[in-house]
């Protein structure tokens, strides 16, 4: 790690900390309502969902239209786990229970990812899109009919363990892990498969295994997002995880820029906060999404950030020196900071 990268990491860490303090203070002194605190938590969850989906949709370049299903699996299994733990040990520490249950939910979603990814990623072509749509519906219908987990009524009585701090820091951790994946050897291997599968194999990359790995990691983090969601709401409504919800997440990723992680973050913020601010127009939510998508496709088809990454270090450098230190960074293009 050179000194420039170190500085950039430090800067990001400071920024992340400052944002946290600011939000906490604003809510503590009632400048922002508790309701807004809830919006922040939902935004964090949507960031996790968008970033994890970007691994498959952006890095790997595959259509994945069942992200809500993996979120549902994470939500249900983590909710079930934490209910069981809280029944057995009512005084168990909240954070520990949340982390453990989330891992259970994430691993369950990851296993489902292996089961779906292995057969459909082996084949070349857009099988994954079709398979994931089908899988999404199967999962939803399963949970509607599976009474031990609440059936159509949904799973109730999940301990509400997700608070602003936990949601924030878990999201920071997930963002860090997915960025690290993006600049790692295996992250690059995922992208090179998107670029050219034959050339990737000729370079010794086990393409099927790497594709399934990417899909599994993506599903795992979707499960983590589902767990945070379940423990924020306190109940799970199986109808939340409809096909349209998967589409919404896909739209967020496309709008941010396929392959751009900072783009996904930005897009998740805009598309979660905006509809909340326009609460009265809640029924127009999908209309807003569609409109945003159409406008974007006309004026900026590569998404807000295209494939480049926003870099705080780069921005400050430019603002203070009025000139570019190096070409705009991107995870899969030039060097990012």
């Amino acid at each position, binding site marked *: 790690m050179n000194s420039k990268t170190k500085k950039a990491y430090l800067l990001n860490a400071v920024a992340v900390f400052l944002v946290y303090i600011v939000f906490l203070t604003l809510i503590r002194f009632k400048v922002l309502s508790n309701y807004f605190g809830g919006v922040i938590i939902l935004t964090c969850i949507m960031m996790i969902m968008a970033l994890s989906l970007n691994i498959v949709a952006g890095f790997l370049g595959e259509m994945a239209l069942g992200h809500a299903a993996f979120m549902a699996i994470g939500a249900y299994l983590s909710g079930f786990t934490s209910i069981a733990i809280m029944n057995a040990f009512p005084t168990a520490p909240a954070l520990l229970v949340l982390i453990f249950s989330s891992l259970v939910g994430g691993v369950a979603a990851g296993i489902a990812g292996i089961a779906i990814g292995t057969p459909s990623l082996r084949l070349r072509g857009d099988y994954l899109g079709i398979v994931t749509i089908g899988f999404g519906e199967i999962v939803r219908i399963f949970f509607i009919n599976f009474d031990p987990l609440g059936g159509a009524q949904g799973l109730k009585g999940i301990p509400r363990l997700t608070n602003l701090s936990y949601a924030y820091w878990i999201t920071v951790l997930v963002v860090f892990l997915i960025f690290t994946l993006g600049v790692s050897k295996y992250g690059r291997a995922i992208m090179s498969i998107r670029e050219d599968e034959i050339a990737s194999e*000729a370079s010794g990359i086990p*393409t099927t295994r790497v594709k399934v790995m990417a899909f599994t990691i993506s599903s795992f983090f979707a499960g983590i997002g589902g767990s945070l969601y379940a423990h924020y709401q306190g109940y799970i409504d199986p109808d939340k995880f409809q096909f349209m919800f998967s589409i919404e997440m896909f739209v967020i990723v496309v709008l941010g820029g396929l392959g751009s992680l900072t783009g996904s973050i930005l897009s998740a913020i805009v598309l979660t906060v905006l509809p909340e601010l326009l609460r009265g127009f809640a029924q127009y939510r999908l209309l807003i999404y569609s409109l945003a998508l159409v406008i974007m496709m006309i004026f900026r088809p590569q998404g807000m950030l295209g494939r480049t990454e926003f870099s705080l270090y780069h921005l400050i450098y430019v603002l203070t020196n009025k000139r570019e230190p190096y070409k705009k960074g991107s995870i899969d293009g030039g060097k990012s900071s």
Partner: protein
Amino acid sequence: MLKVKDLNVYYGKIHAIKGIDFDVKNGEIVTLIGANGAGKTTTLKTISGILKAEKGVISFDGENITRIKPHLIPDFGVAHVPEGRQVFAQMSVYENLIMGAFIRKDKREIANDIEMVYTYFPRLKERHKQLAGTLSGGEQQMLAIGRALMTKPKLLLLDEPSMGLAPILVDEIFSMIQTINGAGTTILLVEQNANKALRIAHRGYVLETGVIKLTGTSEELMSNDEVRSAYLGG
């Protein structure tokens, strides 16, 4: 080093390679020339495991590699530069080269080899941060070769490196192929451009609709009447 015996390859019912035999010895440049559709690409793809041989044996350094999966072929020391400059377009030149070293763990040696590729192709060094998709055709071909060299191959399979390039660039790339060969890498060069290929190769095979028609040293082939009229333009 490479021995191909009675190789047969099909695309469904189409019999593309009809029982060919050829070999490449350590240190050589061997060229496989033939018109469009003769089966040159099919042959290379079968050697590197992308296509399955229906019948026949491919062996490399005495090991049977006929049924080896494509991503394991680089482990044997065989690197394939696919037809049509398949670089990773959205990745930088440097990252393309790093991907070539995917199977290797010797970090310091990898850095040395990147420098070696940059000495072969100084234009790549100047553009090391540029996205590969924005390089010119010739530069992409250099990058594709450079990336294959990063696997540290004993045998380099080149599929029509001259395709679609200006003559002056073809000369530059072919002279680099000779340099790479001089540094100890054996080369199997597949070409439609028979003239240029025979000039740098030691030996050659003429492939016609999936069958080997002729073989000999480059001099023999260049002075052969059939070859002259069919491939060298008179």
